[in-house]
């Protein structure tokens, strides 16, 4: 029985393809001032001949268009999203409510500090909480995302060394590092030097020793690493790095594993960035917004970006005032406009207040428990023997995530990690991160997060097993997956070959 589907075709129009001259949603408020000739206010020479071509659509059409588009997205409120390194934890609905309060949402960034005390105090309190979580005394909320935080961190490192009259040229990053780390190093004007990983998935200490010299400005580390493993020799690493006068940078993308359990500052890190859109539940928005605050040690503090939110106690006992401190002569300066992604701060502050110290620790405990449980569940699956087909990259207790290798599966069953990922889509599950970290062949990086139920983890393991059993019978199903999604497998190569990046009009 063949089912024609006219409506589907309609689903695929762009907002531009729906446009029809004369349609409109917006109507302007009445002109209430004496109208002056346009030419008088803007000479023709300054004006464009043709208005920008924007869609002409009515409100009902806009609403339906984007409503339907939304149904072509998979999202966290729909199903399991174990995207490694991204910490796709539940986004509490309270956060949207408090972020939308007019006192937050309609507050102008240049409002005078005495008329924005609530916002400044919230930022100050968030700085305080993040400082406590990181174990480092000073925090700047300014960076807009994780990689922006990294850039801030490396620029701070540069400022620190220059302040001491040193011109260092190299920054060390492990070969397991996330792509933003080396990209940041280049952007900050340094040369990247890779450090190897040993047989246990730890930093290769000998390699580190060999490469750590007086030209090294910084070592950027993620701990737990992108392999989901805690670096047990972290103190020794810190000694080596500090021994050559370099700074130790903590990429906080994986902080969700250790909140309230241990602290980067105590490990010897000088600079830490947080991903508020990971560990602290800012919704990802399909690619942002986020925020990447940084915490630093005393020796780095003088160089923090401008302005800093500070608290000043009044001597008349009136209680403290909160201010923006621009008077920071050694600061690296601004990284962006205004005070950072305040709306994100509101959500993350609400999160920290809701959970408190015990709640945050429980987050990390359950995140790690869920990851290890799912790993065990997969390894104990015998039909098919997942321990053999999808072996864990490093056979250790993992932290909040773990890495599997699809290499044996590819050999035995003839389906690649990519095929498994695409087939997962047919089961209403978002795939883990694939082909990262680069170190592991056919890698799958699985991060369940603490907000998923045991039942969901069990179901995921069952689905993976089922897909591999299915592949044993007929690998073509996975190779040609997905089958039930709004579009089938897309040709990314073709897109890059002849880029069409805007609608031709």
């Amino acid at each position, binding site marked *: 029985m063949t089912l024609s589907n006219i409506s589907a075709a309609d689903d695929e129009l762009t907002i531009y393809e729906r446009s029809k001259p004369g349609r409109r949603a917006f109507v302007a*408020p009445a002109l209430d001032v004496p109208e002056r000739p346009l030419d008088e206010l803007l000479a023709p020479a300054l004006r464009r001949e043709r208005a920008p071509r924007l869609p002409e659509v009515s409100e009902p059409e806009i609403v339906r268009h984007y409503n339907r588009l939304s149904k072509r997205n998979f999202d966290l409120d729909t199903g399991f999203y174990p995207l490694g390194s991204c910490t796709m934890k539940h986004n509490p609905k*309270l956060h949207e409510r408090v972020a939308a309060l007019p*006192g937050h949402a309609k507050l102008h960034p240049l409002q005078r500090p005495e008329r924005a005390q609530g916002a400044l105090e919230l930022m100050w309190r968030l700085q305080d909480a993040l400082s406590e979580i990181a174990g480092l005394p000073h925090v700047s909320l300014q960076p807009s995302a994780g990689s922006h935080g990294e850039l801030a961190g490396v620029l701070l490192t540069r400022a620190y060394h220059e302040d001491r009259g040193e011109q260092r040229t190299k920054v060390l990053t492990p070969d397991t590092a996330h*792509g933003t780390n080396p990209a940041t190093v*280049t952007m900050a004007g340094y040369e990247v030097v890779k450090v190897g990983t040993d047989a246990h998935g730890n930093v290769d200490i000998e390699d580190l020793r060999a490469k750590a010299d007086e030209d090294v400005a910084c070592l950027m580390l993620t701990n737990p690493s992108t392999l989901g493993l805690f670096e047990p020799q972290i103190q020794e690493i810190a000694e080596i790095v500090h021994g050559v006068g370099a700074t130790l940078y903590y990429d906080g993308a994986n902080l969700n594993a250790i909140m309230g359990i241990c602290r980067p500052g105590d490990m010897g890190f000088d600079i830490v960035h947080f991903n508020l859109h990971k560990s602290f539940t800012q919704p990802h928005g399909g690619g942002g917004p*986020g925020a990447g605050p940084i915490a630093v040690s005393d020796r780095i503090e003088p160089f923090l970006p401008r302005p800093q939110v500070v608290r000043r106690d009044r001597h008349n006992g009136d209680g403290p005032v909160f201010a923006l401190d621009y008077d920071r002569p050694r600061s690296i*300066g601004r990284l962006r406009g205004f*005070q950072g992604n305040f709306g994100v701060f509101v959500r993350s502050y609400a999160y920290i207040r809701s959970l408190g110290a015990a709640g945050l620790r429980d987050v990390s405990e359950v995140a790690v428990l869920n990851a290890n449980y799912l790993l065990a569940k997969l390894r104990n699956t015998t039909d098919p023997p997942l321990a053999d087909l999808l072996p864990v990259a490093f056979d250790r207790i993992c932290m909040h995530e773990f890495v599997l290798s699809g290499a044996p599966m590819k050999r035995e069953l003839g389906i690649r990690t990519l095929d498994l990922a695409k087939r997962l889509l047919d089961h209403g599950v978002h795939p883990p991160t694939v082909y990262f970290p680069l170190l592991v062949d056919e890698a799958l990086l699985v991060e369940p997060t603490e907000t998923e139920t045991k039942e969901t983890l069990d179901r995921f393991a069952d689905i993976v097993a089922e897909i591999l059993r299915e592949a044993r019978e007929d690998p073509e199903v996975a190779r040609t997956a997905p089958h039930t999604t709004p579009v*089938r497998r897309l040709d990314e190569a073709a897109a890059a070959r002849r880029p069409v*990046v805007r609608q031709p009009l």
Partner: protein
Amino acid sequence: MTTYTSATDADRQEMLAAIGVDSVDALFADIPESLRLTAPLELGPGLSEQEVYDELRALAARNASTEDETSFLGAGMYDHYVPSLIDSIISRSEFLTPYTPYQPEVSQGGLQAMFEYQTAICELTGLPVSNASVYEGPSAVAAAGYVAKHTNGRPKFIISRGVHPHSRETLRTHAHAWGMEVIEAPLQDGVTVLPELGDDVSAVIVQQPNFLGSVEDLEALSRAAHDAGAVAICACDPLPLSLLRSPGECGIDIAVGEGQTLGNRLDFGGPSFGFFATSQALLRRIPGRISGETRDSDGKRGFVLTLQTREQHIRREKATSNICTAQALNALAGVIYLSWLGQRGIVELTELMLQRTAYARQRLAGLDGVELLHEQPVVREFAVGLDAPVEAVMKRCLEQGINPGYALGGDYPEHANGLLIAITERRTRAEIDRLADVLGAAVAAERGRTLQEVGA
């Protein structure tokens, strides 16, 4: 204490058993004993939802929002009306909660919206290529500088003092690391005057309209840049672009800007988004995500993140930028807003602001002790100088519930008592008249005081 975890005690026991350890602590064995915290973090206990709500409402109540005063503040972010349909669309979990669309087959909603957004930004800027967003306005200027650096490797940026102070400072922060020099071009009668441009100039950076509200002669500026073999970069304000000659028409190579005015709320400065558009020649140097059209295995149209070989996750240290998470949701609000305005609406809206701004400028120019800082054409914002201490005048206005604008003295010592005044479609004639009355009275009063003091 609120919790968002579902693991019951029974769950935890079962899970530990399956793992084969007898306690959660055992899972943290890799962490050296000496590093394990023995005391809880000093964050206090968790609260119930209602308690957190009450605390945040109390904090928010200590901010004066645009609902609590009549605000003429602009200077980079503006109090525009955000139509209701934007909230109702971007609050849908399908847009709010997914990650960057790494699995395009289940991300067509986001990817198509990016494609639509890129198209609208190309139309506004008159340039052929746009990415899917960068962080925000000032960092977009630095990002544009980074592209210029890679394009010609020259050591100097010439940036107009008409560019937003935050953008100038942000560029400086980056340029230092790149070993590059930042030279500011002065303003005369409110518009940019470029110095001699040598072959050591990597890029010329201007803003349209500039920080003092003036419409710049973009064509002349980009011609000068090109004559010197430099990249022409313009930071622009998207709504005025609906009336003004587009950066593309004027020969600009890279147009960037702050997207807050396109359907995003003020949020005390963020999150909003930055837009980034370039000439075809720079396509492969653009930072960040780009959505591109392609086909699926059935030949159906679809969209994917494309040209990824520019990006950090592929090219790592050779990437054109380190940006990863950007501002997708805010850019989505942007394209919804532009669809809501529509081709005619955006012009009608901007013309309304143009007329009201002209009216306000005239009203204020007519006040004793208030004169215009320049006579250049303006769209939504203009600058005046007060013959009285601006700080004291502002305080008087605020007592009347009016926030008269942004004091320029900090950024422009030459305009110690300068005031930058923005007139969006939210500000009615009645409010403008009220501003004139209150400001006029405040200036008069302060002049009176100073005269007395002098007299005394």
